[in-house]
């Protein structure tokens, strides 16, 4: 795919050459790489990518075009896109147009013909960091833009991408009840999955207070995925503390992190995050492995709720279960790690033992990625129904 010469420069000064194949202008954001080999439209439109420039490591992007049904929001949230080869022609029976047109239509700056492997290795070795990219600008300008760009840590992006007004997604199929979803940047496929379970989904802004949520008499509250650092999300955390023990809770991704914070754990930034569709996650309950879809730059440190401290990750050999505490205690009772990432041993899920609440760091709704963990939505339903029964 031809296009005008373009440049991308990282905050630490690495320069990458390519061709501009998206919208005109400059894009600045934190650069992250995603190793998924398909599902680009779901990725670019995932609000969790707000403020980020996404490098797709797969060689060809845009091959099967775009289809409205794949959008995770009403617009792509990524700041920019960097690929090795953007397909100028798409081919798939579902396709409604080319990715290039989609990017331009939504004003996304995109670079193609970039040595994306070099860029990926750079991110791996020097960490996620701001990048500035565009065509018709000189290197120096981009270098300053990248160097002076704000880092993710400490930024509240969730509130910005959250819905300004509450709205309702109707249950599909036989109606079971109501779920309130606290929108921190929720993907459409999550709402689809909740609705498919027979729940009317009330999507409410990130700033909604616990009382207002309870007024909707939900059978359960869902904490959505979303962009950036969980720590500055004081209001949502407060809200969750007000809900814990009151109503069954299920959190995904950022929702998992804020639940962790609400329980009194801490969070930290991963060197370059988890972004892709091939991350093995161990289900500690039964030792089964789920291949998961992931997209996060921060993680929950469970040791804040446990005695002892995290052992060092082994320099060679596989990370072991000892990297996670056996149990944790919070002011809401006992908490246990439920899932572990087998690549780096980090916490992938937690479950409260005394109150109905659990969460996972990854994306059971997939979209894109493997659907091994879809069952978690059933678990949420069970949790809600049990709560009903005991109520």
């Amino acid at each position, binding site marked *: 795919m031809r296009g005008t010469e373009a440049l991308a420069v990282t905050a630490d000064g690495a320069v*990458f*050459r390519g061709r501009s194949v998206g919208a005109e202008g400059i894009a600045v954001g934190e650069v992250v*790489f995603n*190793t*998924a*080999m*398909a*599902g680009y439209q*779901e990725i670019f439109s995932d609000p969790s990518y707000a403020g980020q420039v996404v490098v797709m*490591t*797969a*060689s*060809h992007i845009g*091959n*099967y075009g775009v*289809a409205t*049904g*794949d959008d995770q929001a009403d617009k792509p949230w990524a700041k920019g896109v960097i690929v*090795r*080869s953007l*397909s*100028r*022609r*798409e*081919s*798939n*029976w*579902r396709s409604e147009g080319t990715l290039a047109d989609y990017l331009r239509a939504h004003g996304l700056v995109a670079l193609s*013909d970039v*040595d*994306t*492997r*070099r860029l*990926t*290795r750079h991110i*791996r070795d020097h960490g996620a960091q701001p990048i500035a990219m565009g065509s018709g600008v000189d290197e120096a300008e981009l270098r300053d833009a990248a160097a002076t760009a704000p880092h993710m840590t400490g930024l509240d992006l969730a509130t910005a991408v959250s819905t300004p007004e509450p709205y309702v997604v109707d249950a599909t199929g036989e109606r079971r009840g109501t779920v309130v979803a606290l929108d921190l940047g929720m993907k459409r496929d999550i709402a689809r999955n909740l609705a498919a379970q027979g729940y009317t989904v009330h999507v409410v802004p990130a700033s909604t207070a616990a009382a207002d949520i309870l007024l909707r008499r939900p059978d359960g509250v869902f904490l959505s995925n979303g962009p950036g650092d969980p720590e500055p999300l004081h209001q949502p955390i407060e809200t969750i503390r007000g809900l814990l023990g009151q109503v069954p809770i299920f959190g995904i991704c950022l929702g998992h992190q804020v639940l962790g914070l609400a329980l009194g754990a801490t969070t930290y930034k991963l060197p370059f995050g988890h972004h*892709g*569709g*091939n*991350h*093995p996650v*161990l289900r500690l309950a039964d*030792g*089964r*492995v789920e*291949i998961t879809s992931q997209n996060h730059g921060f993680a929950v440190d469970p040791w804040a709720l446990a005695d002892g401290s995290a052992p060092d990750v*082994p*320099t*060679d*050999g*596989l*990370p072991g279960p000892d990297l996670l505490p056996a149990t944790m205690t919070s002011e809401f009772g006992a908490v246990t790690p439920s899932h572990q990432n*087998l*690549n780096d041993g980090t916490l992938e899920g937690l479950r409260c033992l005394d109150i109905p609440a659990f969460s996972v760091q990854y994306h059971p709704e*997939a*979209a*894109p*990625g*493997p*659907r091994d963990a879809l069952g978690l939505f059933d678990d949420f339903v069970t949790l809600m129904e049990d709560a009903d029964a005991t109520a």
Partner: protein
Amino acid sequence: MPRRDDIHSILLIGSGPIVIGQACEFDYSGTQAAKVLRKEGYRVVLVNSNPATIMTDPEFADATYIEPITAEVIERIIDKERPDACLPTLGGQTALNVTTELAKAGVFERYDVELIGAGLDAIDKAEDRGRFKETMEEAGLATPRATYARSMTEAMHAARDIGYPVMIRPSFILGGGGTGVAHDETEFIAKARYGLDYSPVGEILVEESVLGWKEYELEVMRDRAGNGVIVCSIENLDAMGVHTGDSITVAPVQTLSDREYQEMRDEAIKCLQVIGVETGGSNVQFAVDPATGRRLVIEMNPRVSRSSALASKATGFPIAKIAALLAVGYTLPEIANDITGKTPASFEPALDYVVVKAPRFDFAKFPSASNVLGTSMQSVGEAMAIGRTFPEAFQKALRSLETGRAGFNADAGESTYGDIPDAQLLERIAIPTPSRVFLVGEALRRGMSVTEVAAASHYDPWFVDQMAEIYEVRADVEAAQLLAAAADDAVLPVLTEAKRYGFSDRQLAHLWQRTEDEIRDLRRRLGVTPTYKTVDTCAAEFEAHTPYLYSTFEDEDEVPPADRPRVVVLGSGPNRIGQGIEFDYCCVHAAFALGDAGYETVMVNCNPETVSTDYDTSDRLYFEPLTVEDVLAIVESEQPEAVVVQLGGQTPLNLASQLAERGVPIAGTAPASIDRAEDREQFSALCRELGIRQPPHGIATSAVQAEDIVDQIGLPVLVRPSFVLGGRAMRVVYSYEELTEYLDEMYGGVTGDGAASTGAGFDLADRPLLIDRFLEAATEVDVDAIYDGHELLVGGIMEHVEEAGIHSGDSACITPPPTLSPEAQDVILRATEDLAEALEVRGLINLQFAVKANDVFLLEANPRGSRTVPFISKAANVPLAKVAARVMMGATLAELRTEGLLPTEQRPDFVSVKEAVLPWNRFPEEDIVLGPEMRATGEVMGISDTAGVAYGKALLAAGLELPETGNVFFSLADRDKAFGLAAAQAFTMLGFKLICTSGTGRYLDHYGVPNELVPKVGEAEHDTLDLIESGQVDLVVNTPRGRRARSDGRQIRLAAQHAGIPALTTVQGALAAARSLQAGRGAVAEVRSLQDWHS
């Protein structure tokens, strides 16, 4: 779940000889498995009849049985070794079939052997198409509509209500044999009838055809905890209707959205689960309707397959090794990913590059076969290429094939396309053939639209558009003017772009009318040189510890610094008839030996089936085409001490002098010496000097001269065009008429579709004809030896069973030589040493002689590793290839003895026989006679105390089930009668009844050998053919007279072939067969391990 401690010894079944549809990929998988199982402390018992495999090297198993892979023989092995378990899923269809047979015979129960990997029921469910469909439907997976038929009427009914076109599948067949698609009733009748005959149970499946749908394959791993992962997804460029083995395939899939892919993924994992594959790798094939996305499951193989080897090389995920570990109880999360070292095997590789596999065909060797591709596999090898984009990988794959093409056209090979009218071009694009892909290129060059071309070819438009991009870059190249060096910079952008789109220097030289060297110099001046990237399973997310590299043209180079001196070993590229696994075997041994000697070994090869392209065979692996350009680039990056060209067969040998001229240090024998042995005049001169006799010969540059030469040296003669290698297009000519015929054929208009061009249309003047006196009734002898400059090490002398005139690769051979006189052997050894010295050989040399009485004639000398090295290494218990590699690097045989690499003790005292395996069943219309042109795909080995038993084992291993008594049909060419008498007498003594045609009969009568006459073909109602077809003959001995296409002999041999009656086409073969029968079946089935023989 950790490793199982309740089993201690494991029987591993190999896949036997290389045949079409089952190549060295199973040596790769078996070797990986054997290695890892021993590392885990299990006792490995291995059986495989193929001596050219790494897995059958004694050090890879505790007990290695080079024995026929039959139920009877394996039961004996089980009885002797008493293994606790049997792992049948790594030896292809062969291992699976024999396992089923053993299980049904109750052998595993009797000896209390547990089947690990896949249980009998799982195998049966997957193999029996009927049960497979049921199982799929129950699990909610769609398959094509289909009905079984056991008669033509049933078949017709089925076809009618399914509607044409329909797919026909005989039950219980291997690798698509006998399958086909019928577009109308007439075609159906023919194919259904053939299918019903072909099926051992006389049953066919008539199936809805989804011709033209997109074809996909997923490689799945499953552990006993029920965890499933997709290792690799593969998309076929050729649509449904062309066997995946014959298709150009691409990894990862390119034209599926994530939704569609995830649905397919879930179905693939479900498929393994419901079929009941407990652990290991399987591949599941899907068809997808491009218009609607409707998806059908086509089949699944509950075992490691050809595609698993491809998937392993394409992703860096060692499927066979992991499958073996899973089979002994580990689960995926417990196994580390070798490449990262610190992440588990329970993940799905992420690719940041594109892999293209292209099949290699040898149709030119099988004139009876049309070159149209179908549902039954016909390719004999494959090349794989890796690039950062599809266009780059695609062009690299096409030039890796070594079919004379430099890439996706833009080379001399495209010259003929210009004459094809547009309409005809589109028609030809619609028919799948080996050359179709290049015609697609031509169509794009002519500016036909992507849509039009895609519609005609059934290639997905996305791929066609990527190809169109290649053509746009080509147009830019053609537009750019290549001026004086001063103005180089002007072409920098287009040059860079061209390289990024995979254009080879050869293509650019063609487009810019320059030499390849000029292009390379230009690139160097402008700094347009390849960068090497790592295959790391994870798209760079984690650091990789295994330098498995491919070239591309980008910013960053990942070649790690080296601390030890490096040696580059050039592999043998895609398998083809005449150059197969034997040469990969030698390259692997070189890597092992040089690694042990402290060198950092660098392997270069592009054949995904091989052990040499396993990333842990050598210290560094470059998965690259074997061309001057690609090898020079690697040499520049690695700066090796030397490059080994002697062991990879013709492929690296053809590069040797070009590399040397460009300053590359060649290990061992100098390219000049290699050329000297190849160049007829020089070589004859040398032989005269040394007093070595050659058959009288000459070189003709005109028809007239050809006849003059024949006048001088006399008929019959062996002729071959000088531009054709490896015995291609060789022919024995008995008359002047045949000579003229031959000249017309060769220098007239034959095209070598799919195979190396025979240079059709060349003129005698610049492509002369080589003429040798054909030595009749001569014994052929092969010798493999190593020379270090002081001392000659003879690996062994192999005496051929079939007479000279039958290619060494197609004839059986015996070592030590049973009938060769000591005098003749002395002459042979002296000639070998004299030549080795005169050619300044450092390393291996192979010679072929023809011996009449005590007259020894040299046929050819190749100062390089030969096809017989693996066989002779096992027969003599000397690691020839390892020793040769060290000698090439300067070690002397004496040093290697003291070092212990070269054994000093006496040779083992047993007889070894090698028998060739030919692909007749793939080319049902081909006459099965042997000749000077090699057509064998593989070989087997038989070992015993006597030649008879060893030969019997070899025949059995080669799949020739000799009858123990019954009727032998004898019909011999006059020149064979004398020798045939002995064979006839032998069979009579064994109690066989001889049935002969008049000529042969009269001859036998004359010597008092009882026989019964049968009318010649067509002379009576109950003629020979009728006799054979009605099953009244148990064995056919028929030697060819001349080459008349529709001769009686040909019809007889075809009839035997179709009726599944063993047919012997040489008298020597017949006599040896009789001798092996005398030895008795019991003796043939006796088993003894190689370790035991060698001790």
